[in-house]
Each structure stands twice: as C-alpha cells, then as structure tokens.
C-alpha cells in the first residue's frame, strides 16, 4: 500500500513533512537517546559482564552478577542483598501508605476551602519540597540526633535507650521518605477532589446512604485515579531513593539505591551494581505502565499527557 495514497499526500509533500517532523522532534529525541537511553543500555550491558579485578567490567558475558544479587557470592549464599531488596520494598510500602493516609485528608481539606485560597494552600504544602533533598534530610538528622528535644522526649517515653538518637534507624528513613513525598500525593488527590462530581454524592445521600457509605460509594471511587497516579509518583521514586536511606539510615537501613551506588565506589563490583540497577529500571517501567493505564482511564480513553 503506497503510503502516499493512504494519507492522501503527494510523495513530495510526504518527504517535506518527514523532514519537518525530524527537524522538530529530532534534536530532543537524539539528545535523550544519546545521553539517557544509551547510558541505560550500557548499564544494563554491564550487568551481564564479569567483574574484573579492579571492579571494572570485563568480558565474557555471564549471569554471575544476578546470582550475586540473589545472594550467591564466593562464600556461599548470604541473604544480605535480598534483605536489602526486601527492605526497599517494605520501607517504600510503609512510607507510601503513610503518605496516602496523610495526603488524603489534606487534599480533601484544601479542596473544601474557598476557591481563591486553594492555590495558596497548595503552594504552602508544596514549597517545602522545593528545598534540596540533602538539606531536608539534614534537617531531620538534626531533629532526630541524640540530645535534641524530640529525641529526649522519645527517651523519656521509653522508646529509646540512652545516648542513642532516633536516627540512624528505619524509623528515620521512613519518616524522611514520607516528608519527601507528601506533596507528590497531595497534588493528584487534590486534582481528583477538584473534579469530583458532586451529583454522585448527592445521589448517594438521596438514596439513604450514611455519610460513611456515601464516602466509599461515591467519593472514594472517584478519587481512585488520583490515588493511583499519586501512588506511582511516590512509590517508584521512593523505591530508588539514595540520599535519605544513606543519611538517615546509616549503613543499616540501606535500600537498593545505596546498594547500587556502593558497587560503583567502595565495593567495586560494577556488574552487581548494573544488575541491581536493572531491577530498579524494571520497577520504573512497571510504574510508567500503570501510570499510563490510569491516565488513559481517567482521561476517558484518550492519551493524557499532564
């Protein structure tokens, strides 16, 4: 089938349009391909290579790195890496759940304020997340350090033993994650509340639903798209966090991001780092798929961009 007749354009016009398409989309796409896709592919290739004596990857290709990731090192099987992976998952899960629990009422609250106040309130919630993540982790380090007011209170309440701080700990890491990602959940939920069809709620009340029932039947389902989008926007980046587990978790609560980074610095095992990075990339792609699916459903079947 001649593409010209299929689209109704002459051959010359087709050529000219192709050139236009390339000229506009070309630079951006080429840039991303060279400086993002290519490096990612290289990283994934490294995952399949052998670890050389200085930590740099060598041929031949092997699945050794993945075996190491599963714990099968030179000294037999040790669960360390798997623990890290598992810790990443449940720390992310807890943090995401907490974020949802906090963000939901907040988003609802904002959406019930007078319309001219809402942008301001949103701004108030978002601005703290504009500070650098290092500074934010640093702030929590100070608050949770031994001797600070909060730590002393925790000690007095019996949560801690003396001279210990609230960080480094899993608690601190989860706290840091929640602090970091709260706004990312508030925004999509708020958008869902904005687009809430109040007629459905009125219909539920009209049909004798109690407030609780009305919420679960009429309100909650409508916020589901925002909830899912927010969950993806929070959990996927949280899963791959580096700074927060490093600063607030010391070496004990490390997550997969720290594992990856270690292989490229002290532990010197690039293939292992690549293998772990692949896990993270796969998680990202999964999240992207879910986001796209949710976006399509929320947009009524069409491709929704932002």
């Amino acid at each position: 089938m001649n593409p010209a007749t299929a689209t109704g354009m002459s051959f010359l016009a087709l050529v000219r349009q192709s050139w236009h398409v390339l000229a506009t989309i070309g630079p951006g796409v080429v840039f991303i391909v060279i400086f993002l896709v290519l490096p990612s592919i290289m990283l994934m290739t490294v995952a399949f290579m052998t670890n050389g004596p200085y930590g740099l990857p060598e041929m031949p290709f092997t699945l050794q790195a993945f075996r190491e990731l599963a714990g099968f090192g030179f000294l037999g099987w040790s669960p360390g890496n798997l623990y890290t992976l598992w810790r990443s998952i449940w720390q992310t899960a807890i943090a995401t759940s907490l974020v949802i629990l906090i963000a939901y009422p907040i988003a609802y609250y904002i959406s019930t304020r007078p319309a001219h106040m809402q942008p301001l309130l949103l701004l108030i919630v978002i601005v703290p997340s504009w500070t650098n993540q290092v500074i934010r982790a640093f702030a929590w380090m100070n608050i949770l350090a031994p001797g600070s007011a909060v730590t002393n209170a925790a000690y007095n309440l019996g949560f801690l033993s003396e001279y210990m701080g609230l960080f480094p700990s899993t608690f601190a890491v989860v706290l840091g994650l929640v602090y970091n990602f709260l706004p990312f959940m508030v925004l999509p939920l708020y958008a869902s509340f904005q687009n809430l069809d109040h007629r459905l709620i009125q219909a539920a009340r009209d049909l004798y639903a109690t407030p609780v029932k009305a919420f679960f039947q009429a309100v909650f389902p409508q916020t589901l798209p925002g909830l899912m989008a927010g969950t993806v926007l929070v959990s996927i980046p949280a899963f791959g966090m580096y700074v927060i587990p490093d600063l607030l978790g010391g070496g004990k609560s490390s997550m997969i991001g720290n594992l990856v980074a270690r292989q490229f610095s002290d532990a010197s095992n690039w293939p292992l780092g690549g293998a772990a990075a692949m896990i993270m990339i796969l998680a990202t792609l999964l999240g992207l798929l879910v986001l796209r699916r949710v976006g399509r459903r929320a947009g009524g079947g069409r491709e929704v961009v932002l």
Partner: protein
Amino acid sequence: MNAEAARRSPAAAEDDGRKAQGDTQADTGSAREASSISLRALRKTFGRDVVALEQVDLDIRAGEFFTLLGPSGCGKTTLLRIIAGLEQADSGVLEVGGRDILSTPAHRRSVNTVFQSYALFPHLTVRENISFGLRMRRTPPEECHRRVEETASFIKIAELLDRGVEQLSGGQAQRVALARALINEPDVLLLDEPLSALDAGLRTELQLELLRTQKRLGMTFVFVTHDQEEAMVMSDRIAVLNDGRIQQLGSPEEIYERPENLFVARFMGHTNIYPVEPEGGGDRYASPFGTVEISAERTGSHMLLRPESLELLPAGETGTNCFPARVSERFYRGAAVEYRLECGRESVTATLTNRGQTHFRVGDEVTLALDTQSLVFLDP
C-alpha cells in the same frame, strides 16, 4: 463564468453611507471587483475510506450571497476549507475570479474566513486582531491604522478597539471576526457557521446585519450553515449538500417550494410526503388518499404537499383532488392555525392563515383540497 460585479471596499461603502447623510467628502475607497468562484469535479477523501466530497461542480456568481446547506458531515465545511486553502482537494479545479488557486497556499489566497468559534487571537487586542492580516502583508502603519478605524466604524465596533479579546461578548466577538476578515478586502469571504454559537435573538439580529453588510459591499459571500431557515433568509442561492454531493442548487424559493428529492424536502422541514405511483396513463397518480390528477411535466416516487398550500373545505364537498378528512389535532399559533388531519390512513398537516374565519374543531369532518399548482414530485 467570469462575471465580476463592481463592489466596494468598506471604506467606500462607509463613504456612501456618509454621502447619503449629506456629508460630501470625496470618495476615498478603492473599488475592487467581486469575484466569482468555480468548482469543477472537486473530490476529497480522508484516509482511504471517508469520502468527504464526490465530484462537486459548482458556480458561484460574483457578488452573490451563496449558502452551503446541509447536516453535519455532509461536506459543506470541507468544501469551504478547500476554497480557503486550509484543506487540499484530491482532484478537481478551483477558480476564483477566473484564476486557478488550487495550488496556491492558503496564506497567499485572497480569501478570508470567519470561523465558527471566531478564532480571535487571545494574546492580541481587538485592534491588533483586526489589523493582523494587513500587518502580515506589511501594510504601512498609517494605512493600517486608517483602515482599522474605517472598518471598525463600518461594523460598529469602534469602541471595542482597545479591549482584550476575553472581554468580548459572543456578538461582539463575531463582529470583530468579521472586521478582521473584511479589512483585507478579499475576493471572497467565507463564513463557517458564524452564528451557531449565538442565542436566538442575537442570531436574528446578526443575520440581518450580515446580509446588509454583504449587500453594501457587493462582495461574494460563501456561507455555511445547517439551519435551513437561516439559509433561506440570507441567501441569493443555496446548495443543499449530503454525503459529499450537491442535492439541489437554487434560490431559496426553488429549494423550499420545489425540492427535487426526498432528502432536500425532509431537510427543509417538510413532513407531508407521500409515495405515489402512476395510475393508468396520462395524469393520474395513485396516492394514499386516492387518485390525484395533476398535469406535471415530471414525476417522481413521492409527492409533497406544502401545509400552507392546502385548503380545508366543509365536509361533503367534491371535486378533483378533494378528499375527505378528519381533524385529529389542532394547534392555534396566533398568526396561523395548524391542523393535523387524518386522510385515508395518512396524517396530513395543513396550515391555514388566521384571517378571522371560523376555525374547525377537533373531530370535525372536512374536505382536503389539494392545490395542483403547488404539488411537487420528488425523486428518492
């Protein structure tokens, strides 16, 4: 067909207006000639399956108010956009003022469009919107300014010139869109359902304004609408389209009083349409009411009775083309009375002007008298 009528620029027309009021300033406008439009064998498909226009042949006379009328998807907007250059025809010929413009890109055609949603540039003021075309053609600023002032007073929007576009009402926006197009003195002005976004009262007012403007300027207008009443009020001639083909081309009287086929009849709102068959020889036709005698030069598969052409006589009257009927419903509409009659097994609508005569009541037996002059035969 190269008939070109002398027509005036807005400036000249404005001068005329002033002269009529006693102002004797000299004529400043340049009189440009209106252009005719010729379409031959125009065809347009979208993708492989959707045929928007099939072999359209059309001649639009210079200086006429021509309407393309039809339901959604009939191809009327596509046809308009081909004339504007916003759509490319697959094949055929398009001539404006005798010149083939099919290969001319849109921004070089001397054709302007008033869009349905007005498409006013939001980041520009009214003045900047109106002068946009002139500025694109590098008109010197003084001339620009003068022409904007003239056109604005001609269309009566002079006080809106420095407003932003968001602050305009529907009617004002429509006038600005019109001014933006007219100021360029195009050969042809295209209007794509410009009034459909307005409410009824404003619509009627603007219909008349548009019509008067066209007459004063003497410019060729091609108007697209799906509203048959609007088409009849404003047009010199109408082309009714369906499925990419012209169903009928003619004056509003011809289209309304003598539709040629079922589609046109139904689209113009006619309801009294009945199947007929020739009976015997000569001038007799079998209809659901009985035998109808009419000497017609043409025949068709259906016959159309216009409600306003029917006469209601008291029951029992006989004669050719008179049939007994019963009043089943009656609607008093002030200036006229509309009767729904049962005649044979059919329902007939008859509208009688209210001249103070006695009206029939529901249930009355009457005689339906057909006026053979107004009876129309339709093709399927």
